[in-house]
């Protein structure tokens, strides 16, 4: 019977021009969502590519300097006597000079499904140029943004995830709000169907399957196309994405069937369906997110520079302060006793600068670590209580599957700080051992290696929660619905 009812509903929809118009609008919107999302992926990848080219060019210039120095074609400029006249030829073998000139790129690779979802990738930088200068200088300058129109940035990008989260449920509202109520109210088909032996429960189920499947098909088709373009069709992330989309739309289908089963009539069903759409999609995610946000999220980052300046001022106030700062840094961070170190390790002017750099780095890194910890606390709260807004939980889970969530960007920042420290320590270690960077050192310098953080079970638990919710709502809808006697 269900199969017959589905065929009947398909036939009804097939003859409805409004239905085909809706389908057309959905298909066009899905295409735009894909184009818009993939355009952003191209920009993101393109920006990092441009930075890679820039770094490669800088390194090639430095390699040329190495070659020229080795061939005796050029002589490096003496830093002590250089007055700005004539060409400055850096000596990249000198660790102090290398600190400025050796540049590395720390790049956050695009998430596997970036393009289907944008997440927070528009709001944070995708790469950093790493040198042995204070990390604050590298971070606070920022990297070129790929999206510079403030209005567009504030509005957010229309990507496939937005299409699935917002537009598909709206289409389901349209197709399902009067799934059964209209028949009851107008007695159009109910009697006929009852005469054919169909129960109202079967009718409800058939409507849900037909109309839910139509929307789900569009969402899945768009997803599969997007995944194929990204070359991720056979990945675990793709499986998670498709499963998430299916369960999310199943949740909405059963929710709206539940509304239909309440027998409010067409107007009542419409009002409740639309109100649910507004509450679940427009109101609850923002309010839940805001309610769970810990206080002082921005403060550590905002105040970091002020703290750095205080430390630098105190450490360079006079000669005594400078010596005390040098002793502290030597003891706490460098672990070097200059009394026993070779004389060449104690380059007064250079170390004076590196003492301040180290103090600045430690202070800045501590402040930023505090910021990241607060943001992690915020994430924990969202993991624990995000289910209060199923849509918020779902969108976070999908962003995690896509690799565009803020936690991934935080992990990148943490790894950048760690790599910068490693890079800076390489320079100071060379200074203390009186080592000069050879061409070989230059070529084989450590590279930034991005380590993908583990998301754990949180996104899967969220998807499972959505699935359970969908099943409960489906059961509620079917049980609640009064049975027609055959």
């Amino acid at each position, binding site marked *: 019977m269900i199969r017959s009812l589905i065929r009947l509903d398909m036939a009804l929809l097939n003859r409805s021009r409004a239905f085909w118009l809706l389908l057309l*609008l959905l298909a066009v919107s899905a295409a735009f969502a894909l184009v818009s999302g993939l355009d952003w992926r191209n920009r993101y990848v393109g920006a990092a590519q441009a930075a890679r080219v820039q770094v490669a060019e800088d390194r090639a210039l430095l390699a040329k300097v190495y070659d020229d120095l080795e061939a005796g074609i050029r002589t490096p400029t003496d830093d002590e006597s250089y007055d700005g006249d004539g060409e400055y030829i850096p000596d990249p073998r000198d660790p102090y000079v290398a600190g400025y000139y050796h540049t590395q790129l720390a790049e956050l690779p695009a998430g596997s499904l970036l393009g289907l979802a944008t997440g927070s990738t528009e709001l944070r930088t995708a790469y950093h140029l790493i040198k042995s200068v204070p990390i604050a200088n590298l971070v606070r300058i920022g990297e070129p943004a790929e999206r510079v129109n403030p209005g567009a940035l504030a509005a957010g990008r229309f990507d496939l995830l937005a299409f699935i989260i917002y537009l598909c449920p709206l289409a389901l*509202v349209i197709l399902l709000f009067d799934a059964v109520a209209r028949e009851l109210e107008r007695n159009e088909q109910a009697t006929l169907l009852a005469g054919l032996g169909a129960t109202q429960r079967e009718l409800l189920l058939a409507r849900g399957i037909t109309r839910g499947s139509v929307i789900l098909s569009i969402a899945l088709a768009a997803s599969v196309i997007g995944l194929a373009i990204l070359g991720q069709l056979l990945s675990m992330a793709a499986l998670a994405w498709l499963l998430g989309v299916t369960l999310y739309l199943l949740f909405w289908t059963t929710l709206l069937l539940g509304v239909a089963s309440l027998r409010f009539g067409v107007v009542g069903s419409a009002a409740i369906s639309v109100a649910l759409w*507004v509450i679940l999609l427009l109101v609850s995610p923002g309010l839940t997110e805001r309610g769970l946000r810990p206080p002082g999220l921005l403060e550590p980052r905002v105040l970091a520079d002020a703290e750095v300046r205080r430390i630098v001022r105190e450490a360079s106030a006079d000669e005594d302060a400078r010596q005390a700062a040098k002793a502290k840094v030597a003891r706490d961070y460098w672990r070097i006793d200059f009394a026993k170190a070779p004389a060449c390790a104690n380059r007064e002017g250079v170390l004076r600068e590196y003492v301040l750099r180290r103090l600045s780095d430690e202070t800045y890194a501590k402040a930023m670590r505090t910021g990241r910890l607060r943001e992690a606390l915020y994430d924990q709260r969202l993991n624990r209580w995000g289910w209060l807004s199923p849509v918020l939980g779902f969108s976070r889970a999908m962003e995690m599957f896509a690799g565009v969530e803020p936690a991934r960007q935080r992990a990148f920042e943490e790894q950048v700080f760690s790599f910068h420290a490693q890079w800076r320590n390489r320079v100071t270690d060379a200074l203390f051992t009186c080592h000069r960077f050879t061409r070989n050192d230059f070529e084989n310098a450590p590279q930034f290696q991005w380590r993908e953080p583990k998301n754990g079970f949180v996104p899967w638990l969220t998807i499972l929660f959505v699935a359970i919710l969908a099943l409960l709502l489906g059961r509620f809808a079917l049980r609640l619905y009064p049975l027609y006697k055959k």
Partner: protein
Amino acid sequence: MSPKNKLDYMSKHSKANSDLAASNATARFSSYFSLEWKLVLKDRGAILTAFSLAVVLLVAFWSGKRADQSETEALHSAAERVQAEWESQPPRNPHMAAHYGILVYRPRAPLQAIEPGVLPYQGAVTFLEAHRRNAPVLSPASVRVAESRYGGTRFSPMLQVTAGFLALVLGYLIGAREAQRAMLLLLRGLGIKGGLRIAAKALVTGTLVLLAAAPALLLAAFQVDSEDGAVRFLALTAGSFIHLFILAGLGVAAGTWLGTARFGLATVAFAWGMGVLILPRIIDVAAEQIIPLTQREINEVIAADFAEGPDGHGNTEANKVFEQEILKQYGVERKEDLPVNFDALLMQADEEHRGKVYDLRLAEADARRKRQDRIRRISWIFGPTPAMLDLSVRIAGADAGTQRRFDQAAETFRRDLVSRLNNHMATNSRTGDWEWTPDDEYYASFTAFNPPQHKLTDNLNDVLPATIALGLWGLLMLGSLVIVAKRFNHNPL
């Protein structure tokens, strides 16, 4: 509606109509309004919806106020501390101080608590240093989860989006009431005319939504702390009222027209969703494709231009030309014989050249951005809400123009600061003397960054396009009400 209630309803309509048949239109309108109002008050669904909206708006206002306080205090505190550190910095060569730089923090927008606009997505801190005009960094949104940018959690966006949608849907349901209960023929039979009845429905719908918004609006009014803030708040309130009435009227017109259509309400809801949530974003992307603009491209052009002028830390042909000019001006043969510090003069020449390049190239970028914004206005065709959202951020002083003014003020401050440092060094030290430091009190003589506060009246041109669009939507709403009223009066049912 039970048959008894239906009869009761009909008799009230009939009475209102016959009693006032000879009266003037105002009295008849008042009677219709009263009737519609009573019907709405009896509708538990409508009242529950309005109550829920009031609660949601109050929560949005409260949470927005809390977030605004926290961010404002953090930025204010950081600004004070950084300025104090600048003033008490140890003796340092002025050009070293210019490289050490200072950070400036974006001041609070007048109505930031209720309408943060684009500001959470824009950098709030700019590092000012010699030679470079850095872009503002650290946007408040960058440390959060990407909060729902579709609904918006602050009061004004929520008022425009959520309350606007409810005004439209409630208007539809109120407008379609008689059609869906098959009572239109009876009303026509009683000689009831459509115009005033439909106008009353629109007014009742709008009033209901406004009453729901009133508590939060009243609370927000008490938070206004300046004359300009009060003007902005009044303008925002007025604009919001008009916007909600337009949507209520359009909803009533759609309900009256499509009341019996199978997908009537669904079509209206879908059209709204497309017009407010989807199409503006599609048009945003289209605008970026038609007129491409990225910071990377801007920076590349600027870097190329820099190479053609004096470079304070480099060795260019322009440096040599500048040196010859200075030597000639002072009538000496060598830099060392100059009575001023040539290095500092070169630094300043570098700054001035770069300043001109920045002005030129950023003005070009700005022109392209404005062209993008003009394309973005196409979304205003699909509903009054996108225009109102634009108007809301501009009235609140939280638009892209505010960010640009902050950026510009920071740059003006940077140029003054660096120029003052370079000139002080030029006139008080000699060429090649990088160890020279000014008096201990010198850095304390610099005043803190304090950009001018722009008033709403200073930027009226910015709000004009969206105001006109809203006005046109108002006319369209009135026109649609007139058409459905005539249709009710004349068309066969």
